[in-house]
């Protein structure tokens, strides 16, 4: 029974590998393979430009996220604490934002490693291998965008929580 399950798992894995390979093969017809080999130097030049622009964006976004975390969220939390206002959701948002910042950093490193491998590849003589690496790099790039979206979500929630605190204060003032 155990053996039969093992065989089924191996067979399923083979199907997955085959389907992903054939998906690349469908996308990558002869003309595209030719285009990669023919435009190899232009492609590499564009990839280097993408690398440079990405580095600049990472620095810029990293500074903005740092500004939100250290300059705003942390100080706001501390100020609330000093005024005896305990808000668990604010503390949770601060912690989630910090861990997402770390993830953004690691996602960028992962993407950069894949992009560097792509740039170093011989696209003229190994276009299929190059295209597979390109697909890997695209996935890593998409991870960065997802991380940015998650941080955006945390910021929106944080803003909402601050608005609630403000409304509560406003109500207290009206009651008095």
């Amino acid at each position: 029974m155990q053996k039969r399950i093992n065989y089924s798992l191996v067979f399923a894995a083979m199907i997955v590998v085959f389907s992903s390979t054939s998906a690349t093969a469908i996308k990558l017809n002869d003309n595209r393979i030719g285009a990669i080999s023919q435009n190899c130097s232009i492609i590499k030049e564009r990839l280097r430009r993408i690398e440079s622009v990405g580095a600049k964006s990472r620095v810029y976004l990293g500074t903005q996220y740092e500004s939100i975390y250290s300059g705003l969220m942390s100080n706001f939390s501390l100020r609330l604490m000093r005024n005896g206002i305990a808000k668990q959701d604010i503390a949770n948002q601060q912690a989630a934002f910090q861990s997402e910042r770390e993830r953004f950093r690691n996602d960028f490193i992962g993407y950069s490693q894949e992009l560097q491998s792509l740039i170093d590849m011989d696209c003229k003589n190994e276009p299929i291998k190059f295209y597979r690496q390109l697909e890997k790099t695209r996935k890593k790039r998409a991870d960065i965008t997802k991380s940015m979206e998650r941080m955006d979500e945390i910021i929106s929630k944080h803003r909402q929580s601050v608005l609630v605190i403000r409304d509560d204060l406003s109500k207290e003032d009206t009651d008095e």
Partner: protein
Amino acid sequence: MSKKEDKDKKTIHGGRNLIILCLGSIAIALITTSVSLYFYSKGDIYIDRSRPGYISEDEKHNTDDDIQEKYSNEGAITEKNLTEYIEELDRVSERINASKNDFGPDPLSDDNLMITSNDEEE
């Protein structure tokens, strides 16, 4: 064995130890530097702003990445300063939103990289 010969032997022995110490120090320095460089090249090299050529000088001066919002961690919590806080948060969010497509899929698309066959172009 005379006292003089004994003294000479001690001096030679000390010199050999000094050489071993020097070589050992060099070997340890080489190993630790290699390990550090290995880890640097696997990760931090991609986010090291001080690395030559990481961002060109022209690009460095065109960025407003030094603008940082700061909210004071001291003072009372009032409606007014909460509004100010939200405004500061919105200012940074706006800057982030302006760059939200910086890691979009277009730059690595087949079209942008000129990986399109002639049939598709037609």
